[in-house]
């Protein structure tokens, strides 16, 4: 790797970028024009709106059924409010009120307080959803409060008391926040979001052009046959993306800065002691560089993977959306930077910005943020170089992903990509439809979820593709000896799974609502055998069809071990439950092993049913003396059970491994 050559590539790419009118317009020209326009437009619009609202005033109908000196005083005070006009109330006013011709109706009547003292009841009907309504009620309240104060003083004087006795507490507010800090907190909310978006969008425009664009224009091969090494090419392009994204951020910031200061000076606001925190801007700008490098690497690898610009743009889209959502964290008041948060990309920068803008940040957080981002960056750039050196990626050819194509080419349907897409669609359906079904009725909802969302689609797809479901799903009779061993595997496994959950609970304590939700599952009011069908048998069959029958077929390009791990990960993710991820992952590994090793899905079906059944029985008989002995109250088991469980489990697995020694390949065709 010769850095000089990377620089040659970089200089040329930059020159090309700056010659592209579109890029030039979006990254530099647009921000320069946009902010002044936005600010000038907004501020003139806002001030005009405010004046207009005040001038518009309000028309109010008053019904005074009291006609006392008190009510007269109130009304005469109300009449001093500027731009407000009053009409005497008549039933006809109701219609005008509805038509918004009249903005409020006030009724003054007689009332008694709890202490049987005279009260003047002042009723206002108004529309709080309109700007005018809110303005109106504010002014009315202020006027009323003044009048009330006058009347109370009057009363006290009549009683020969000093009106001063009413004052008990004197509130003195000292706002320690400086104007500087106030400005910082507002900027700290908006700026991180804005800057992250700008950074990424600037990078995305450049990245798509740099590799996918070269593929589209057939210039990539020209570059590849030159004496530049691929690493040099990648580094050169990578630096170009970083530069373009930072230029975009800088152009926006500078334009934003000038138009904002201009607006402040024009508005005649109190600006003494307030200056835009230029030094903070600088810190932020520097802190953005690592994030910029991370995105440059990620977007460059997307561009490398894509066949053309259009494809690159569509692959970039989800990255942009996710980053925007992560960047929005600065809008939430509750989030502050911690050591843990400082390790999460995008979120850390967003929160760091917020802290820097109010002048309260820790150097350790700054370093952690930059360090962790740089670490990810190194990984990402390494991956990009790898990708760039992979022929099958750099020269990816068209694949037929149409439904017709899938039918024509059944084997092609089972690709890793399709597997992940199928899984994601399933996850979304489960999330919406599944929770809807279970919300209506937990028991039947669970069964419907299992059958209609998890199992049936698989069977229908296999039917549609005219594939042999029995063969694909490994529905092959297991041997007796395997079936005999399964209980010795499944029941200890259930104990291990349960203990794993308890371990997770110790590290990340389950929230109480979560436990309540989980408890509902075991407290359904129905006979035990029905519960057994719902909780143990139906997932035992349906989930196995999907995760041990169908999903492994998508990943057959990988080794058997990898297939087991991948499907177990998907299985764990499918439960949409971060607290049970680890235990379910363990269960997934076991079940995947049982099926793939023996070539028969019935083994894992039985094992899954036994596992869930054991958990159900343990929960149902929690108060039984036997359970009392092995549990520490409720459905938590004592830890010493781990020892016999793991011993039996290991022995049984070893025996299973032995008896299936000559069967492991029977499923592969």
């Amino acid at each position, binding site marked *: 790797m010769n850095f000089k*050559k990377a620089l*040659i*590539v970089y200089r*040329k790419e930059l*020159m*090309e970028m700056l*010659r*592209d009118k579109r890029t030039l317009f979006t990254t530099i020209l647009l921000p320069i024009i946009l902010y002044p326009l936005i600010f000038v437009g907004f501020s003139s619009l806002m001030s005009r709106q405010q004046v207009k609202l005040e001038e518009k005033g309000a028309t109010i109908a008053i019904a005074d059924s009291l006609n006392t000196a008190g009510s007269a005083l109130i009304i005469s005070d109300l009449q001093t409010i500027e731009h407000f006009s009053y009409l005497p109330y008549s039933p006809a006013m109701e219609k005008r009120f509805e038509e918004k011709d009249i903005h409020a109706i006030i009724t003054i009547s007689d009332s008694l307080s709890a202490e049987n003292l005279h009260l003047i009841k002042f009723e206002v009907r108004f529309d709080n959803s309109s700007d005018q309504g809110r303005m109106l009620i504010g002014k009315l309240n202020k006027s009323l409060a003044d009048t009330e104060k006058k009347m109370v003083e009057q009363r006290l004087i009549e009683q020969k008391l000093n009106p001063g006795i009413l004052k008990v507490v004197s509130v003195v507010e000292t706002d320690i926040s400086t104007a500087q800090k106030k400005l910082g907190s507002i900027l700290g909310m908006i700026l991180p979001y804005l800057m992250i978006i700008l950074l990424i969008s600037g990078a995305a425009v450049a990245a798509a052009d740099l590799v996918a664009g070269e593929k589209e*224009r*057939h*210039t990539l*091969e*020209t570059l*590849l*046959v*030159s*004496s*530049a*090494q691929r690493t040099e090419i990648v580094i050169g392009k990578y630096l170009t993306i970083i530069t373009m994204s930072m230029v975009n951020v800088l152009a926006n910031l500078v334009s934003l800065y000038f138009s904002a200061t201009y607006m402040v000076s024009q508005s005649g606001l109190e600006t003494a002691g307030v200056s835009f925190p230029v030094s903070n801007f600088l810190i932020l700008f520097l802190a953005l560089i690592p994030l910029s490098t991370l995105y440059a690497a990620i977007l460059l690898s997307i561009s490398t993977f894509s066949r053309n610009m259009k494809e690159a743009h569509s692959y970039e889209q989800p990255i942009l959306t996710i980053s925007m959502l992560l960047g929005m964290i600065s809008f939430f008041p509750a989030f502050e930077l911690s050591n843990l948060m400082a390790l999460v990309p995008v979120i850390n920068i967003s929160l760091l910005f917020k802290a820097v803008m109010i002048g309260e940040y820790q150097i350790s957080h700054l370093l952690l943020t930059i360090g962790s981002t740089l670490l990810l960056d190194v990984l990402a750039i390494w991956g990009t170089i790898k990708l760039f050196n992979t*022929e*099958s990626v750099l*020269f990816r*050819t068209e*694949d*037929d992903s149409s439904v017709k194509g899938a039918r024509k*080419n059944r*084997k*092609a349907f089972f*690709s890793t990509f399709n597997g992940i897409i199928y899984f994601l669609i399933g996850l979304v359906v489960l999330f919406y439809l599944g929770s809807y079904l279970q919300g209506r009725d937990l028991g039947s909802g669970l069964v419907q979820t299992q059958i209609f969302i998890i199992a049936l689609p698989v069977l229908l797809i296999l039917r549609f593709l005219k594939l042999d479901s029995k063969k694909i799903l490994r529905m092959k009779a297991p041997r007796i000896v395997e079936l005999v061993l399964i209980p010795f595997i499944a029941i200890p496994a259930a104990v291990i799974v349960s203990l794993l959950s308890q371990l997770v609970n110790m590290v990340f304590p389950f929230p109480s609502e979560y436990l309540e939700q989980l408890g509902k599952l075991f407290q359904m009011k129905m006979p035990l055998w029905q519960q057994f069908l719902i909780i143990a048998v139906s997932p035992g069959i349906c989930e196995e069809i999907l995760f041990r029958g169908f999903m492994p077929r998508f990943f057959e390009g990988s080794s058997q071990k990898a297939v087991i791990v991948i499907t177990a990960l998907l299985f764990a993710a499918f439960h949409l439950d971060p607290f049970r991820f680890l235990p379910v992952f363990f269960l997934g590994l076991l079940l995947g092993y049982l099926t793939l090793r023996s070539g028969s899905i019935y083994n894992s079906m039985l094992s899954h049913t036994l596992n869930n059944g054991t958990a159900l029985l343990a929960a149902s008989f929690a108060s039984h003396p036997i359970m009392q002995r092995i549990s520490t109250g409720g459905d938590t088991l004592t830890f010493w059970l781990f020892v016999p469980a793991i011993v039996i489990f290991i022995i049984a697995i070893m025996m299973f491994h032995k008896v299936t020694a000559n069967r492991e390949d029977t499923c592969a065709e």
Partner: protein
Amino acid sequence: MIEVKNLVKEFNKKDGSVYRAVNDVSFEARDGEIVCLLGVNGAGKTTTMRILSTVFKPNSGTALVQGYDISKEAQKVRENLGFLSGDTGLYNRLRPREFISYFGRLYGLDNAEINRRIDDMADLLDMKDFLDKKIDVLSSGMKQKVSIVRSIIHDPPVMIFDEPTSGLDILTARNIISFIRDCKDKGKCVLFSTHIMREAERLADRIVMIHRGQVLANGSLEELRAESGALDLDDVFIFYVNRFSMEPEVKEHEF
């Protein structure tokens, strides 16, 4: 000098099967010699040349370009190689001079050297008028000339042309043909591929016929004519393709 030794290149097809695009190809091209890879579309010509240009890596076998191994010394190979094909496009936003200088710098030449060579070539190919216009606005003939200069800016001893005249009009194609002859006269080793028999007939010192990834025949036009007994290169080519297709039958009879 190019020496190709038992080159094999396989691609994974989407249905999981493996397609062998180049199947045990061996041949060589000496300095001052024009060798033509002749074959129909999809015969494996482009794949072979892409391997020689180090864009693709072979599954097995190797090749030496000017004595450098394409797998182990890829950069040295590229430094000694000029490559021109339908897929070596130009950067439309640059000017010819900038475009050529860019590649010159990548080859490690200094600016004075680059400018001298550009001026020489511009005189030769009559490019003075458009050297400083945007490539975007050039005609395809002008672009072809820019590509030629780009491929030879570092004065490589070995030149590879992959279907250099495909899609070009007669006048532009003539530019290329004379450029190829010029390379030979300067003592360079030239390998070019085509599916146009006439082009092979006119240019090649030696013809390597390639079909379904395999070498059918390798020899001068006269040698091939003599062996096949046909005069027209079309007929010569058909003769070898037929002999290749017959082979399995011959083998069957042997058993």
